[in-house]
Each structure stands twice: as C-alpha cells, then as structure tokens.
C-alpha cells in the first residue's frame, strides 16, 4: 500500500505519457508502444473475424442454407479462417505480449532491431489493409487452405489479392521472429543465463524458430499460387502438367508448424500464470523449456498428417503419423508439469489463474482429440468433418485465445498501470469457458456423424447439434465482448496497480507500471534462478502488513 501512495504522489514519466502526439505513436521505436499498436490492430481483426463467425453460426441454425447464398457463405467462412489465423492468432501473443514483455523479461532496453520491429507492424498493416481491400472487392471463397486447382483456376474471387496480402503479412511474422531470436541471444542482462530465462521467453524462442523457417515456405507457396492465377503457368494445374497435391505439401509444411506458432506462446503464458498465481517454481522447468523446442522441431516433420486421404503413399503416411505422436509427448509433459506446479502452492483464484485452469482442461481435450486425427485409420472417417473443426477450435480458442486472454489480464496492470475489475474478470472467464464448450463440443459429435466441413446446407438430422453450437456461440460472443468494456473502463477508473500487484517474480515486475521508456532506470543484474519467490519484496511486505494488522 505504502509504495502505491508514494507512486501516485509523484508524477512519473513512463512509456505512455512520453509523447502524446499521433506521430509519437506511429513513429515509435519503443517495443512497448509497438506492442500496443499490435494490440489495437489485432483486436480489430479479431472482432471482424468474430462477425464472420457469428454469420456462420446463424446460417447453420437451419439445415436449408436460407440466410445467405452458398456463394456468400463460402466467402464468409473463408474470411473467418483467413482473418483469425493470419491476422489474429499468428500475431496475437508474440506481437502483443511478446513485444511488450520480451525485453522487460530479459532486462534489455528494447528489442535488438527497434526499426525492424516498427517495420513489422507497418508490413502487417499493409498486408491487413490489402486483405480488407480483398473483402471490399468481393472477398474470396477458397477456404483458408487455398487448395488448387479450385483456387488457381476455378474460383472467380479475389484469390490473387488475398494471396499477396498473406505473402506480405508473412514478412511481418518473419521480422518479429528474427527480432526475437536475436534479442534473446544477444540482449540478455548480465547474469541472465539460458536456464534463468522465464519459460515465456523459451516459448517465444521456439516460436521464432518456426516463424523463421516456416513462413518463407508458405510465402513462396502463395506467391506461386498468385503466379499460377495471373500468368497461367501450370505449377499446380494437372492439365498443364502440374501437381495439385504438391501445393498441399508446401502449404502444410508451413501451416502445420503455424498452429504451433499460435499455441506455443500460449503455453509460455500459462507457465508464467501458473507459476506466479501459485507462487511456485514451475515443476520440471527444464522439461517444460525443452518441450517447447521439441514441439517446434518435430512440428516441421508432421505436415503429411493433413493428407492421409489425399492419395499420399501409405508409407509416407505411416511416418507422418508416427512423428505426430512424437509431438504429443512434449505437450503431455507440459500439461503434467503445470498440474504438478499447483501442488502445494499458494493458489490465488484471480482471473489469470481461472484462465490458466480453463487452458489446462480445454487444451487436454484439444490435444487428445488430435490423437484421434493422427490415427490413420480413424482419420479416414474424421478428415474434413466437423470433428476436425471442433479439434482445432479446442486448441486455437481453448488453448491459444484462452492463454492470450489470461496473459492480457495478468499483464494488464503492467501495461496500463491500472487494475481491471477482478469480479468482472472472473465472470467473463466463466462465461467464455461455458460458451466455448457449448459451441464446440457438439461439433465433435456432429463431425463423427459425418457432417463435412464448409457445408452451407446440411442434412436435417444434424440440426439439433448445430442449434446447440450456435446457442453456445452467442454466449461465447458475450464472454469475448465483456473484457473490451471493463478493460477500457479500467484505463480511466481502475485502481492504480503499483509495480508488482500479484507479488510475481520476473524482471518485468521490478520496474514501475507502466514502465519507463527504456524499461529500467538501472542496469538489472540477475543473481537468482527463475521463479524464486523467496526474494520477492512485495510478498514479504504484504506479509509484514498482515502481521501488523493481526498484532
């Protein structure tokens, strides 16, 4: 308490009030401000993608396909997919929380290449703007996977423009990954050895590896698709000697690791949340750290599991299936270690911990249902059905977005210097959890019953499950909207947070909230291991205050 009073008494310059002009934001080289620029941009994309999701769920309430035409529906689900994946999920945690936190956690003044960092945001905006242009010009209807020859010859929509926008956005992702990797290698404060790094940093290191190695492949793939459409080259067109399945290989070589770009940072967030909300060092720190790298590396060798029914040879399929099970192991290791971390902890029930717990449950279901799909004989039936849709939403929403929201609540006091209203945080977390399960669990069932993906109309016997799903979606939408309002409210009316409101470890909590422009007023020197709570002054002080009260 005493520290907070002192802080509010003296006006302090921080990264937020360092400049108030629009220019000071648009030309900023400060990683924290760039993180916020990303936060606003990807939130906008999230809500546009959310509107498309709403339209999908509304259409599927009835089996006839009577709300919109098939053509419109195909565009709606394509744009939902493209926006959510390329313009929200891939940049979400790395570009917002990673940008804001990485230098703070390392004890650095900024990322290694601040100009490149700003450039990556502009590249993202140009790519995103071009995709908006695609939408205005009629959108695309190929599905987010862009399989030729439909996308290259038969579709009459804006495939080339969309391809170019994804090509450009890819460079934003590459630049972020490159910057993070160099930052982690070269910008660590004295004493910050590799095994003293927070697990959030390890997760981002693994993510950067995928961004660097995978993104260029999808970039060249969509570029080839664009050439194919505009120049009639015949790269993937069987009529001109091309091979349509080659596209699938090249596409999934990136797009499977890309799901790890979305989930590994979320795992990093959950490691931080669980450690700090239970005040326990993460159980099996080394195992959790290396499992991130293992997932990133193995993730490059499993793309063929998207193609068990695509006429790929059985022997290739066997190898891809086997390696896919190898990826499951590090994910399982992480889950068990997080659960073990809670054991004998001092567990807080604040919103970030509720999100972490939701993550544990939903990610377990998401991961386990992945095993169904990796089992070749079962995948023959499940492939391209709603079971797949349910599985990846369990991982992407139940895993990645839940982690992102948990992280946003946890670091909100650091970002803004204000506390969000805790009670509303808990209510919205509960609503998200319920709404999510109601939306997506029925999709496992309807998928096994045989409902294919990307169907505008469907056979009537699937209707009950679709109605359940749509009802859940409306609850989920409410849960996603609530934080917008209370976060906005808290900026003006929230309680001042103080440097370390959670009694958390990590360098980011040792500097004021919001942090000054160069992060620290001193050169941090690290002398302790990660997650050593004995040294956290705030916890000791809270203990003293309590002792005085009880005395």
């Amino acid at each position, binding site marked *: 308490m005493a520290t907070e009073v002192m802080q509010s008494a003296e006006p302090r310059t921080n990264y937020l009030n360092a400049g108030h002009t629009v220019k000071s934001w648009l030309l900023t080289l400060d990683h924290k401000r760039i993180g916020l620029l990303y936060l606003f941009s990807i939130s906008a994309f999230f809500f546009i993608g959310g509107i498309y999701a709403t339209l999908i769920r509304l259409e599927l309430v009835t089996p006839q396909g009577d709300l919109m035409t098939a053509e419109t529906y195909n565009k709606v689900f394509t744009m939902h997919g493209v926006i959510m994946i390329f313009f929200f999920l891939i940049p979400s945690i790395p570009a917002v929380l990673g940008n804001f936190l990485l230098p703070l956690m390392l004890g*650095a*003044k*900024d990322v*290694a*290449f*601040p100009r490149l960092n700003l450039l990556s945001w502009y590249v993202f905006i140009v790519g995103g703007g071009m995709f908006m242009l695609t939408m205005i010009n009629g959108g695309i209807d190929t599905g987010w996977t862009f399989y030729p020859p439909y996308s290259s010859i038969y579709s009459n929509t804006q495939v080339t423009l969309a391809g170019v926008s994804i090509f450009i956005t890819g460079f934003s992702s*590459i630049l972020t990954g*490159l*910057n993070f*990797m*160099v*930052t982690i*290698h*070269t*910008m660590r404060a004295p004493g910050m050895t590799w095994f003293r790094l927070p697990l959030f940093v390890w997760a981002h290191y693994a993510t950067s590896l995928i961004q*660097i*190695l*995978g*993104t*260029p*492949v999808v*970039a*060249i*793939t969509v570029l*080839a698709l664009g*050439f194919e459409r505009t*120049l*009639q*080259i*015949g*790269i993937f067109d069987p009529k*001109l*000697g*091309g*091979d349509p399945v*080659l596209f699938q*290989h*090249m596409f999934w*070589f990136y797009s499977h690791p890309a799901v790890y770009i979305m989930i590994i940072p979320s795992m990093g967030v959950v490691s931080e949340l669980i450690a700090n909300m239970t005040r326990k060092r993460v159980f099996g720190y080394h195992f959790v750290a290396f499992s991130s790298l293992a997932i990133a590396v193995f993730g490059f060798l499993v793309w063929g599991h998207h193609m068990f029914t695509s006429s790929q040879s059985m022997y290739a399929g066997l190898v891809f299936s086997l390696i896919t099970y190898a990826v499951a192991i590090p994910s399982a290791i992480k889950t068990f270690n997080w659960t073990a971390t809670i054991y004998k902890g001092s567990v807080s029930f604040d919103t970030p911990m509720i999100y972490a717990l939701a993550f544990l449950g939903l990610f377990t279901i998401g991961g386990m249902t992945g095993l169904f799909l990796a089992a070749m004989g079962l995948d023959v039936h499940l492939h391209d059905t709603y079971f797949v849709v349910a599985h990846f939403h369990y991982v992407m929403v139940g895993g990645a977005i839940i982690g992102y929201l948990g992280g946003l609540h946890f670091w909100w006091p650091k970002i803004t210097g204000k506390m969000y209203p805790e009670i509303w945080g808990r209510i919205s977390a509960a609503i998200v959890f319920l709404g999510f399960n109601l939306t997506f669990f029925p999709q496992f069932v309807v998928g096994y019953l045989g409902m294919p993906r990307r169907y505008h109309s469907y056979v009537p016997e699937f209707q009950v499950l679709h109605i359940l799903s749509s009802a859940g979606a409306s609850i989920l939408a409410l849960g996603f909207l609530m934080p917008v309002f209370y976060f906005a409210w808290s900026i003006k009316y929230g309680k001042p947070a103080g440097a370390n409101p959670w009694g958390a470890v990590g360098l980011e909590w040792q500097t004021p909230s919001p942090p000054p422009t*160069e992060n620290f007023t001193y*050169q941090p020197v690290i002398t302790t291991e990660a997650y050593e709570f004995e040294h956290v002054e705030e916890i000791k002080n809270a203990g003293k205050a309590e002792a005085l009260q009880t005395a």
Partner: protein
Amino acid sequence: MAEHATHVPGLAHHFVSMEQQKEAGTLGMWIFLLTELMFFGGLFLAYTIYRTTYPEGFLYGSHLLNVPLGGTNTVVLIVSSLTMAMAVYYSQLGEKKKLIFFLLVTLALCFVFLIIKYFEYMSKIHDHLFPAFGTYHPSTTGPHGIPLELQQPVRVFLWIYFLMTGLHALHMIVGAGILITLIYMAQKGRFTKQYNSPVEISGLYWHFVDIVWIFLFPLLYLTGFHVSGAGH
C-alpha cells in the same frame, strides 16, 4: 558503461556495447539468410518433384539453355564474391579508398550478371519459350524447337527455370541497391576500423546470393549434360 556507450559513433542507444551491436547484426543476418534459404527451398522442392516426374522434359529443357552464357555468369559471380570479400577486408583495415574500389567492382560485376541474364531471358521470349501469359508456342523443329509430345514437360522445366532464376535475379537487384548504399556511406566516411559491420553483414548476403547461383547453374543448365553423359 552505459554513459560511455553514448559517445561511440554508430552505437544505437539500446545496445550496451559495440560488441553486442555487432553480434546482434551478424546473427540477424544469419537468421535472415536461413529464412531466405527456406524461401528458395520451396522452389527446390518443386524442382525435385517435377524432375522426378518429367525426367525427359528436364533433360530436353536444359539443352535449351545457353551454357556458355550461364557459365560466364557463374564466373562473374564467383569473382564478385572475391571482390566483396576484399571490400570487407579493407573495411576492417579502415582503408576507405580500397573499400570503395572493391565495392564498385562488385557492383559492376553485378550489372554484368544482370545484363547477361537479360539477354538470356529475351532470347527465350523471342523463341516463344516463356511459359506464361499464353505466349508459350515453341516450334517443333530447329535448334529451339521441341517435339510436340515433350512440349508440356519442357514447359514445366521452363517455368521452374524462370521462377528460380527470376527470384535469384531479384536478389541480385536488391544486392545492387545494398552495394550502392554502402558506396554512398563509405564515401561519407561512415566506416572506420571500429565500425564496419554493415559492410560485413552485406558481404554475408552477397555470398549467399552467389551460393544460390552455384546450385542453380548445375541443376538447371547442366542437367542435360549429366543425364546424356550417363546414358550414352
């Protein structure tokens, strides 16, 4: 330490020391080259798959390419790698004049490469061998003719040729831009014995672009020789 750092010319404010800055720059370039490698990797994958599918198309197609011109370009690039290495060497010694000289020679070689490439492309377009825009109408006879049943497989070879060498040429053009910037900076006396990492990092890029060509040349131009040599 931080107070001293602000006095060093060329040191950005968020780095603690010159060593840290140089390490970050070099590592950044290596990682960037890794990305580039994967970028070309997608096309090498397409090459491998289509060469296996259409061996005869690749055999025939590679005979259509001008080996003397391609070979000349290979020599030009290898020499340019040497001059670039010399430029890096003299930048480390802080010898401004020699640095500028070798950068200029490298730039000149870069243009020589691009001009030769231009003539190669134009002759293909002239022979109706450009596999896009519906302009692919090779004759069936003559030195640039293709038998009817091979026209499609050769077409696959040709688009791979144009895509790979085109992407490579694009990298050369970017390299030319980098060289011009370096020459301008060197002219202004920005490089010293202590601060020369931009030259060094650009050198890495230049060598990478050369190495890509070292792979492209045999894979595209010499495939025919290899196969016919083994077959007969």
